[in-house]
């Protein structure tokens, strides 16, 4: 789960990382009193988990606290819409933080290097822009240090790394200390990404984590109790949030063919087939192993929440999942939700004959193969 900026900075501050002063507010009065503490010279930032927040009008600088408070009043409850997130998100909280003067901007991150099966720290003098952009234009500006899984990081490795990254002397010691705190935070809070961009050097020579992105490993929420309650707020989309509450693996896409299948690989493959047949998938939805009728119904209901969906493709290869249970769930969903859009179902594997018999005579169009199913659903939704 992605943490909000204020949560990320709180977490880092708790581990001793220097972050700009500030606090989160959900009303104009609180925003004003926080801004007053910094003499009114603050930045107000909408706390929504979407890209393009600044361009959408969710970030603004102020020199007096009343203006910051008025802006907060306008922002709370407003739906921000960006290119990255056309459906938009409603602002519930803002971060009111002191403005800091920046002399130079660097980049720091900790993440998993899958190929090496080790954590890796990435350091760059080129902060302030997307790291992908740096990787493309100037790859030698990114210095990587692997963290030994048994022994951790050694100081000499970090001294060598910040030197190789051409970080100026005044910032080197502070950066080494910050990196060690970031790795400790990563491990103690089960993060799966920590990114500091920019990591700012002030004209006075102080290194500050000016912006922070932290994401926590969803699989570790059972032992990261502080984040358990806020888990579904972190979804970037309302249907995805509902799916998280129901415990269903669902990703919203922007096409018109709803897709339901079992097993991540098979669902991805069904999406590919829909695209190959000339359609666009509206979602990724994995019903999971051993789904009962009730769960299948819940999945159909979820897909139908997206108003763009014009037809549904259901592709099940039953291993642990029984096709007759799936068929019952589909029929229940169609009856109870009064679904009138076309539904094509391809069911194979355990109890497939029984499943097909249940669906025979209903409005559901049967298909022999995944390819045939994709062609049939695309033909009816085009």
């Amino acid at each position, binding site marked *: 789960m992605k943490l909000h900026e204020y949560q990320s900075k709180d977490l880092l501050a708790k581990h001793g990382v220097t972050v700009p002063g500030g606090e989160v507010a959900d009303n104009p009065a609180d925003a004003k009193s926080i801004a007053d503490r910094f003499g009114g010279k603050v930045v107000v930032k909408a706390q929504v988990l979407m890209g393009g927040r600044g361009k959408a009008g969710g970030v603004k600088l102020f020199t007096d606290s009343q203006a910051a408070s008025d802006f907060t009043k306008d922002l709370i409850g407003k739906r921000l819409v960006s290119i990255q997130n056309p459906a938009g998100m409603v602002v519930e909280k803002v971060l009111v933080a002191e403005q800091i003067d920046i002399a130079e901007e660097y980049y720091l991150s900790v993440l998993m290097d899958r190929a090496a099966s080790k954590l890796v720290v990435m350091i760059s003098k080129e902060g302030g822009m997307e790291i992908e952009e740096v990787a493309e234009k100037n790859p030698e500006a990114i210095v990587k240090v692997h963290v030994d899984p048994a022994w951790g990081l050694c100081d000499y490795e970090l001294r060598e790394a910040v030197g190789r990254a051409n970080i100026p002397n005044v910032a080197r010691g502070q950066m080494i200390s910050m990196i060690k705190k970031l790795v400790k935070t990563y491990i103690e809070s089960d993060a799966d990404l920590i990114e500091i961009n920019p990591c700012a050097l002030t004209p006075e020579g102080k290194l500050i984590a000016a912006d922070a992105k932290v994401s926590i490993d969803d699989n570790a929420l059972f032992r990261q109790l502080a984040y358990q309650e806020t888990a579904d707020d972190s979804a970037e989309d309302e249907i995805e949030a509902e799916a998280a509450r129901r415990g269903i693996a669902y990703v919203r896409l922007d096409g018109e063919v709803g897709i339901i299948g079992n097993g991540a*690989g098979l669902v991805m*493959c069904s999406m590919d087939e829909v695209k190959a047949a000339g359609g666009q998938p509206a979602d*990724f939805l994995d019903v999971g192993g051993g789904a009962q009728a009730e769960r299948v119904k819940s999945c159909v209901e979820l897909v139908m929440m997206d108003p763009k969906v014009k037809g549904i493709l259901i592709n099940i290869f039953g291993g*642990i999942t029984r096709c007759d249970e799936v068929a019952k769930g589909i029929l229940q969903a169609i009856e109870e939700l009064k679904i009138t859009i076309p539904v094509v179902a391809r069911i194979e594997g355990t109890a497939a004959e029984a499943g097909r018999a249940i669906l025979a005579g209903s409005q559901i169009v049967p298909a022999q193969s995944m390819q045939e199913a994709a062609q049939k659903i695309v033909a009816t939704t085009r």
Partner: protein
Amino acid sequence: MSILVNKNSKVLVAGMTGREGSFHTGQMIEYGTNVVAGVTPGKGGQELMGVPIFDTAEEAVARTGADAALIFVPAPFAADSVLEIEAAGVPFICLITEGLPILDSLRIVNRLKANGTSKLLGGNCAGIITPGECKMGIMPGHIFAPGPIGMVSRSGTLTYEIVWELTQAGLGQTTCVGIGGDPLPGIRFRETLEMFEADPATQAVVMVGEIGGSDEEEGAEFIKTMKKPVVSFISGRTAPPGKRMGHAGAIISGGTGTPQGKVDALLAAGAKVADKTSDVPGLIKEALAVRA
């Protein structure tokens, strides 16, 4: 012949008394797998489906000589179970459990690598089957058939889909290996391909990959040197960057893990890449005909 498991494998099941564990152990016994022990702390001395249950892996191994282990233990305790079974000296461990914290995967993968005494398959995998001999996992046994094709895949149901096509086309399998959908798996494509290349019974290999990571590209490096033909399929060609597609490992991020990058690497290595799952048997037949 086969790789990793065969009719002589003596299988220990950790978490055998749980709902999933007992259901699948029953299915495995029915298939003919030699399940010799179950491990559930606190249930030692009991018996389930004729299989003795032990409190610890150490005791189970000492009493039964188990040489392969299958784990159904819930995610919060799964890493500990892997380490316990490694310490008990079991050389092959298969972890079915889904949802392992990535830092737990990091610990077990690196410790097993450093000690070098046990191989880990998974987590979050469907398991492994040598048709007609040993089924260690959650796959439906009836869709597999013995034969000359080795198969390795990151996805369970997509394996079933393609195996079903192969079996119907008369192409049976030596061993089918599910390496799982986690970002830090134990055994990866490359190692599995090396084993299939060395297995005299395997004549061709099907490799089913998906978006995310660079395991397919690493596998392709080895395919360049292989004498046996490889047919591959990559799923997730329409998945958008930055979104996890169900599997924790299936994500295109920072320009790596793209489907095109994988397809290009495989083609450059001399593998055939199927556009559709249903094309796989035809491509295998062509490849075998060229060799014959």
